[in-house]
């Protein structure tokens, strides 16, 4: 979880004029609450239960960041924000699991290990450069580049946003079953959106997001189908 890393960067760069805002793409505020309360962050920590950021900014996975200048202009559209230094090579399944669950988690870890890792040091250097040099930084893009670098919004992607919005609205109104039909529609319309899928799977299969009677996909099947190398868009820095 990257929250402590964002707080470190905020401590370093806030004196130079950078604010950080973290946004949890969690359907349930309570799922994010303990992480947020434990983070000890000084900066705004928000929760986007309706996934407005997906609709308005084209976010499809986490961690994703965007940079906004002093005038409210985006200078880096949403991109995979690699700030954590991972070592997944030693990942192991917990001991004492039933055989079928053990095999499933083993299989998940094999996929996780094949998800590409990006250069966190380079990303942080780019961020420092922008904070120091602003528009003169080579990492600050022009408005035209920002628009062209944002995600495409096909009719299917637009409809997926509407389906997810209706689904989360019904979910929060207590109509859990009705909500699922709309989450399924969002998954079908925008299969590359992991936030729509993982939030829905997490509700019916917490922790492993495994196969269920409610959704066609699950984390393991879907990442195998997409290819773990495509799980994150490589950041272009």
């Amino acid at each position, binding site marked *: 979880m*990257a*929250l402590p890393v*964002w707080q470190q960067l905020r401590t370093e760069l806030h004196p130079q*004029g950078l*604010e*950080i*805002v*973290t*946004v*949890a*793409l969690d359907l349930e*505020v309570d*799922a994010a*609450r303990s*992480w*947020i309360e434990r983070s000890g962050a000084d900066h*705004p920590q*928000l929760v*986007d239960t309706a996934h*407005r*950021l997906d609709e*308005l*900014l084209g976010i499809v996975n*986490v*961690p*994703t960041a*965007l*940079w*906004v*200048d*002093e005038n*409210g*202009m*985006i200078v880096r*559209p949403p991109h995979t924000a690699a700030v954590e230094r991972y070592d997944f090579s030693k990942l192991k399944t917990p001991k004492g699991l039933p055989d079928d669950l053990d095999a499933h988690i083993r299989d998940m870890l094999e996929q996780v290990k094949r998800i590409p890792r990006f250069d966190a040091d380079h990303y942080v250097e780019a*961020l420092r450069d922008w904070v120091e040099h602003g528009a003169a930084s080579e990492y600050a893009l022009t408005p035209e580049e920002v*628009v*062209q670098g*944002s*995600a*495409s*919004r*096909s*009719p299917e*992607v*637009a*409809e997926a*946003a*509407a*389906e997810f*919005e*209706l689904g989360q*609205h019904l979910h929060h*109104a207590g*109509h859990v079953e*009705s909500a699922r039909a*709309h989450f399924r529609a969002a998954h079908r319309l925008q299969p590359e959106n992991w936030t729509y899928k*993982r*939030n829905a799977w*997490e509700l019916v299969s917490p922790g492993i997001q495994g196969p269920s009677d409610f959704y066609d996909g699950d984390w393991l099947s879907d990442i195998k189908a997409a290819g773990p190398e495509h799980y994150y868009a490589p950041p272009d820095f």
Partner: protein
Amino acid sequence: MILDRLDMTPDELERRTGWELKPEGLCKDDRCVPLPAGGAADGLVDVTVVAERLGMPLVHDERHDLWALGPEAGDRVLASAELPPIVLADVEGRPFDLSSLRGEKVLIAAWASW
């Protein structure tokens, strides 16, 4: 946006979508889209017609008689580099307007507990 009926006043339409009803049609920034006859009558605009004209998806939940009107489909999610208006709540439900951070550089970082 969530709707419980398919007509709204021009004021509500403008407040919720940014599209203003003018004699020449629906207008936003420097763009106007003609609205066909019947698209607006008796002080109300027909959301079905608006959705069709602007390329917005309109999805329905029959059981609860609710609709969601989605964003305009088109080329790119960002029509301009300006950060769109975004107000989100913190864990205590207090709203926070991202535009209140004008004057500072801002990094918005999306994460999730799952």
